[in-house]
């Protein structure tokens, strides 16, 4: 019997429809893998076998009914029907934990479903559990989780990226074919790149954020992970769309063509005549040579398939990091004011209101979250608003203008590295926050401009995955997925595509250290 977890989501969907497997068997196979390997990977903060199996059994009953009714009823089922999905632990699922990777939400149980959770229920996808993340999605390594770091399945002493590191590692490790994350400055694309999978940050407003723990409200967006382009596109289709409970979700139609991406032959020929821009500023100083080499090889492959690639300029790229690290912390400091120990979460201190606030927030938040709250509070405080926040909002206009100029000139998409480096070792960037922030230099301008960005694997450097980023104009997710599908088709036979994450098998060994133990070992060795 083949290992069901190794199949793509769309292949699993095919077997469900022919009756060769049940949703219950798929859920059980993935739950077994997740439970067996979570000690070594710490990708999951909670796994709810009982609920998942119940949902899968219900899906099997629906499927049996559809089969009796015939082909049209089967065809009406969404491609995600009956398939396992993982949720980043900042997505509300009624009655379930939702820690956002923070101690300040320990014990909190979500009173209602997020919009995207409702959407997953509506298509009968099966939620297996909740995944690890940097606290409040602030970080690029998942080391800022209050519940310990996640290991990268390619090298267990390295980070999976972040902040959606648990969602990326779970899909890379075959614990689920699909997962959802959020991306404020790169938190889907960078972990997708570092774990060797596909991840999309959709256009701002594409997916409703109702029921999601907020970080920076003018930047946050929810998006899908998958091991291939088709799976990521199908998951976007399932969760996207207008929701009146999130006034920033846009009334843009969600194209059904997301479910009908072309097969290899057609996808490869569709690259002909595409106009792609290669922004020279994204090949930043400090980029690892192996990363640059893989990205340039991918660009050459796209050109060989008939795409027209021109070097272009996004002249305000160098201002992105500073702008982002004013805007995002400022918005975070406002959003995180709600964690006061009054309505939810542990209440610390035993005195007056102020004493309790100081204790609850001082002890409940971790160091990175406190750093950002401090930065944001300062940037918004009396006398500094114009110098920081207003200035950053103005520079944001210039950054967005760079992209508008290129897309106005007819480029279908921009091609760039997703991350300047491959997965780094635990601890390597913890001591210097600015070095961690640089992890997102190639992704955060895309959030500043509200645009969609897609990361797809494009090979290995020193045995670790490299991501290729495609950036498009607003609402161009379908076009990005088509180009990515074309790239997948022309590299279908590449040797690296057939490889499993190099150290995944080690995660089966109960003697393998936990990520927290590895991180502690590396920290001790550094001293």
């Amino acid at each position, binding site marked *: 019997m083949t290992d069901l977890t190794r199949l793509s989501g769309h292949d699993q969907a095919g077997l469900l429809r022919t009756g060769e497997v049940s949703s219950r068997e798929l859920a059980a196979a993935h739950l077994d893998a997740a439970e067996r390997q979570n000690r070594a990977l710490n990708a999951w903060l909670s796994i709810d076998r009982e609920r998942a199996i119940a949902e899968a059994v219900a899906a099997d009953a629906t499927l049996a009914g559809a089969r009796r009714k015939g082909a049209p009823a089967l065809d009406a089922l969404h491609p995600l029907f009956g398939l396992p999905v993982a949720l980043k632990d900042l997505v509300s699922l009624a009655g379930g934990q939702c820690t956002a990777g923070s101690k300040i939400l320990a014990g909190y149980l979500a009173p209602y479903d997020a919009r995207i959770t409702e959407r997953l229920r509506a298509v009968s996808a099966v939620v297996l559990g909740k995944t690890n993340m940097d606290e409040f999605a602030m970080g690029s390594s998942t080391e800022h989780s209050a519940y310990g770091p996640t290991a990268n399945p390619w090298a267990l002493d390295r980070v999976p990226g972040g902040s959606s590191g648990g969602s990326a590692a779970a899909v890379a490790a075959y614990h689920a074919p699909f997962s959802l994350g959020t991306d404020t400055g790169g938190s889907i694309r960078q972990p997708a790149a570092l774990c060797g999978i596909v991840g999309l940050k959709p256009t701002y407003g594409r997916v409703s954020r109702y029921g999601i723990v907020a970080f920076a409200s003018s930047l946050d967006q929810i998006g899908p992970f998958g091991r291939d382009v088709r799976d990521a596109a199908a998951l976007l289709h399932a969760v996207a769309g207008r929701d009146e409970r999130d006034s920033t979700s846009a009334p843009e139609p969600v194209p059904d063509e997301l479910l009908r991406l072309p097969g290899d032959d057609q996808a490869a020929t569709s690259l002909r005549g595409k106009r792609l821009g290669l922004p020279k500023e994204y090949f930043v100083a400090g980029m690892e040579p192996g990363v640059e080499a893989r990205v340039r090889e991918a660009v050459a492959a796209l050109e060989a398939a008939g795409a027209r690639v021109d070097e272009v300029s996004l002249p305000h790229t160098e201002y992105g990091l*500073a702008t982002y690290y004013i805007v995002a912390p400022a918005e975070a400091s406002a959003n995180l004011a709600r964690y006061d120990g009054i309505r939810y979460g542990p209440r610390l201190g035993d005195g007056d*209101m102020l004493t309790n606030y100081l204790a609850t*927030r001082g002890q409940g938040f971790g160091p990175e979250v406190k750093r950002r709250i401090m930065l944001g509070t300062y940037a918004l405080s009396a006398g500094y608003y114009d110098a920081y926040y207003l200035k950053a909002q103005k520079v944001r206009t210039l950054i967005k203008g760079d992209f508008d100029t290129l897309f106005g000139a007819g480029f279908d998409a921009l091609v760039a590295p997703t991350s300047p480096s491959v997965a780094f070792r635990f601890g390597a960037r913890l001591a210097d926050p600015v070095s961690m922030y640089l992890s997102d230099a190639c992704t955060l301008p895309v959030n500043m401009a509200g645009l969609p960005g897609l990361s797809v694997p494009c090979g290995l450097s020193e045995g670790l995955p490299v991501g290729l980023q495609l950036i498009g104009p607003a609402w161009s997710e379908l076009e990005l997925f088509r180009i990515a599908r074309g790239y997948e088709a022309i590299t279908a036979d590449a040797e690296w595509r057939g490889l499993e994450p190099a150290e995944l098998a080690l995660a089966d060994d109960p003697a393998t250290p936990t990520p927290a133990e590895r991180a502690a070992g590396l920290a001790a060795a550094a001293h």
Partner: protein
Amino acid sequence: MATLSRADVEHVAHLARLGLSEEELARLEGQLNHILDQYAILARLDTNDIPPTAQTIELENILRDDVPGPSLPLEAVLRNAAQTHAGFIVVPPIMGTGE
């Protein structure tokens, strides 16, 4: 751009209602100043005539009909609170006990 003194760091921590240890305050003073140094690059840009961008998609205000709908049951709202009494959340006195 400004430099944060230790007193500034304490003031900002108070504004943010963060109770920080001496060690945290000392570490943050160094780290925040290092991060603020990175912001200096923005001074190179003349932005006097540039309008600020607060949101990137051109959505107008979207209003919906003012129709009451179901809301969460009281017990669901109160379940996560640290202390409740008779359908209310209990908080410490805010204005002094007034004895």
